């Protein structure tokens, strides 16, 4: 099985390197094909590992080599394939394979086609390290690796110029890339601190050693570690207040959004919480905070999605919102449910994004859903895919999202956190509304674009075919919930609804369903037949607030970015140049000036010299006389 581990891990790496070889040459289709094949290989290896773990219940643990060893610290490159990681591996490789194939079509006309595959595969490699590592440091490699790859991919179209925030809320791909990287880095610091706490208290960064040592640690240490790690998770998973980068990241090519900003990278935070569940389960306060923050973000993001006009941003906000759900579940202790929702969400969200990519492709990169409409006819396949994905997202029964989301909401009830439950329910309604608002505005009604110049057409066939596994999974994944629970709870703590909740589960489900369907109906009423703009509503404060993302990006710019730049400028010009350097030069100048002053003593006039001599002599004599009196 070890070989499969390495194949799963290094096939994407090989793919990346292979594509990189052609990174500077013009588009070569075979690069994409080979990359996709290698990814598929990785998927196959992951799947067989999954099968192996599933059937035998054994876990595979390999150590490749030492990485860092200094002092008592020893970090190997070790890889662990257990129930959790194998789930992630399978999901990641599956979605990425689809995205790779999709990209062959989508990036067809891009001159940096080869480079794109190199980045994309590198990303998958990082993600695989992240999920497979058997220690926190290895996780951190992947953690940073995905950060860099996302930087590369968001900034893929680096040559675009900066725009003002009014014209483009994300300013430019390169700006968005930097924002993403830096936001992530802020969180990474927290993560690092978490690592340090764990190391100095347990003497290792290996999961098994760390977790085994947890019971001996004091509450404050555990809390500190949990908080620090969660800060790390907040960055990757774009939790409030580090969320702004995720929507700006939509500047990247759409396959990137599908892969990174929906299915994989952003779930890393959730993965971390799940992975470190032994830690989080002994820190109930932190866990509750996670749940509360998750719930808040779920609602918060959904609210912004309600009014957004940008196709990709709506989906990004929904991602954010769903990540909130996952954190809510994980925070409430239902780790396996969180993981299940993570997997299910990966499928339908990737599908949604890829569908959005098709739309963009057809609309020549137009993203404003107010300028779309009526695409149903031209793009039937995409319409079906996106409809299915939206249904799954909205949590309509028997689609994947229904099972997982319902379970989360049920958990919230079960834990007695009624407020969280209520918010999650309302959010479910909002989710349904904005998903279908977007579907209706895009596909239904009349065309709002200039039909004389734009002739929307469907994506390549092979792309649609490639998307089909995702569509299939978006529909059926939910049915695997039971067996998944059985499989995963060998590792993760099982979570059982209490007797009481169990009794009213159908009622809870019904409430959610009603709210969700209500959302869809509302969306249909409003947008089913095309766009009806409501000036009054659009001018209302709430609408503007939501449309401007609660003015948070502006706030960050005003409170952090600009003052930082200003402070830096002052530090340089006023402190460094005017104080520090001037002091140094001042000392030199002082010496030089005193030399100039002293020079006046040397008048060249002998008489003065004689005076000096006499002064010196008399002074010495006087000093002698005075000191003689004190002897």
């Amino acid at each position: 099985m070890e070989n499969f581990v390495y194949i799963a891990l290094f096939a994407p790496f090989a793919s990346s390197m292979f594509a990189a070889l052609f990174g500077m040459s013009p588009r070569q289709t075979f690069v994409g094909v080979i990359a996709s094949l290698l990814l598929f290989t990785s998927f196959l290896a992951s799947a067989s590992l999954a099968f192996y773990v599933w059937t035998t219940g054994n876990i595979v643990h390999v150590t490749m080599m030492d990485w860092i060893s200094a002092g008592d610290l020893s970090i190997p490159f070790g890889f662990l394939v257990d129930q959790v990681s194998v789930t992630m591996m399978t999901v990641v490789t599956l979605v990425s394979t689809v995205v790779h194939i999709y990209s062959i079509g989508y990036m067809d006309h891009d001159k940096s086609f080869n480079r794109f595959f190199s980045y994309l595969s590198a990303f998958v490699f990082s993600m695989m390290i992240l999920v497979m590592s058997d220690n926190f440091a290895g996780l951190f490699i992947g953690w940073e690796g995905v950060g860099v790859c996302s930087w590369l991919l968001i900034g893929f179209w680096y040559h675009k110029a900066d725009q003002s925030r009014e014209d483009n809320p994300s300013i430019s791909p390169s700006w968005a890339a930097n924002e993403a990287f830096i936001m992530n880095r802020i969180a990474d610091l927290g993560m690092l601190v978490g690592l340090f706490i764990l190391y100095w208290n347990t003497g290792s960064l290996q999961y098994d050693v760390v977790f085994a040592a947890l019971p001996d640690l004091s509450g404050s240490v555990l809390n500190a570690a949990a908080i620090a790690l969660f800060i790390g998770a907040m960055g990757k998973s774009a939790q409030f207040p580090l969320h702004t980068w995720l929507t700006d990241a939509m500047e990247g090519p759409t396959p990137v959004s599908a892969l990174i900003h929906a299915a994989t990278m952003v779930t890393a935070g959730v993965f971390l919480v799940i992975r470190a569940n032994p830690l989080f389960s002994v820190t109930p306060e932190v866990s509750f905070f996670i749940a509360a923050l998750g719930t808040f973000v779920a609602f918060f993001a959904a609210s912004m999605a309600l009014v957004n006009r940008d196709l990709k941003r709506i989906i990004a906000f929904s991602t954010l919102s769903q990540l909130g759900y996952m954190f809510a579940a994980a925070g409430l202790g239902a780790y396996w449910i969180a993981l299940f929702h993570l997997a299910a969400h990966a499928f339908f969200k990737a599908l949604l994004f890829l569908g959005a990519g098709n739309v963009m492709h057809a609309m020549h990169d137009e993203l404003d859903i107010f300028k779309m409409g009526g695409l149903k006819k031209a793009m039937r396949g995409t319409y079906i895919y996106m409809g299915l994905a939206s249904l799954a997202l909205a949590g309509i029964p028997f689609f994947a999202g229904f099972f997982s989301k319902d379970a989360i909401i049920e958990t919230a009830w079960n834990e007695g956190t009624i407020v969280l439950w209520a918010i999650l329910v309302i959010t479910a309604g909002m989710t349904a509304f904005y998903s279908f608002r977007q579907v209706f505005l895009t596909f239904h009604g009349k065309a709002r674009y200039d039909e004389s110049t734009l002739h929307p057409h469907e994506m390549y066939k092979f792309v649609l075919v490639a998307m089909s596994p995702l569509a299939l999974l978006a529909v059926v994944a939910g049915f695997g919930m039971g067996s998944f629970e059985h499989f995963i709870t060998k590792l993760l703590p099982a979570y059982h609804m209490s007797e009481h909740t169990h009794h009213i589960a159908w009622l809870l489900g019904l409430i959610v369903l009603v709210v969700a369907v209500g959302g869809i109906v509302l969306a249909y009423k409003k947008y089913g037949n095309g766009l009806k703009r409501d000036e009054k509503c659009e001018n209302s404060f709430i609408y503007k607030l939501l449309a401007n993302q609660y003015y948070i990006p502006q706030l960050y710019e005003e409170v952090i970015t600009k003052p930082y730049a200003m402070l830096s400028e002052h530090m340089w010009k006023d402190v460094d140049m005017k104080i520090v350097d001037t002091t140094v030069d001042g000392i030199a100048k002082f010496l030089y000036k005193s030399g100039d002053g002293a020079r006046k003593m040397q008048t060249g006039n002998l008489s003065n010299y004689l005076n000096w001599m006499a002064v010196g002599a008399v002074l010495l004599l006087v000093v002698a006389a005075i000191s003689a009196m004190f002897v």
Partner: protein
Amino acid sequence: MIGLSHYLIVSAIIFSIGLVGVLRRRNLLMLFFATEVMLNAVNIAFAAISHYYNDLTGQMFAFFIIAIAASEVAVGLGLLIVLYKKYGSLDLDDLASMKG
């Protein structure tokens, strides 16, 4: 009675007079006079000490001081002459081409 201190004090006063001369004279020749005054002051001291200690060393010293004074005058006058040829003046204030 006149003691050693009396002579020494006279010597000190004359020495100081010489010093004042050195300080205030701007004419080189006059300045040399002042240095002679100082050396003579020292001679008085030596002779007096020699007398009161009944020791000849002081007289020796005074004797050599006279010799030194004579040599200095020779060299000094030689210098004065070349200087005067060059500058046409013995004023110290004219003698300040090097400074700083």
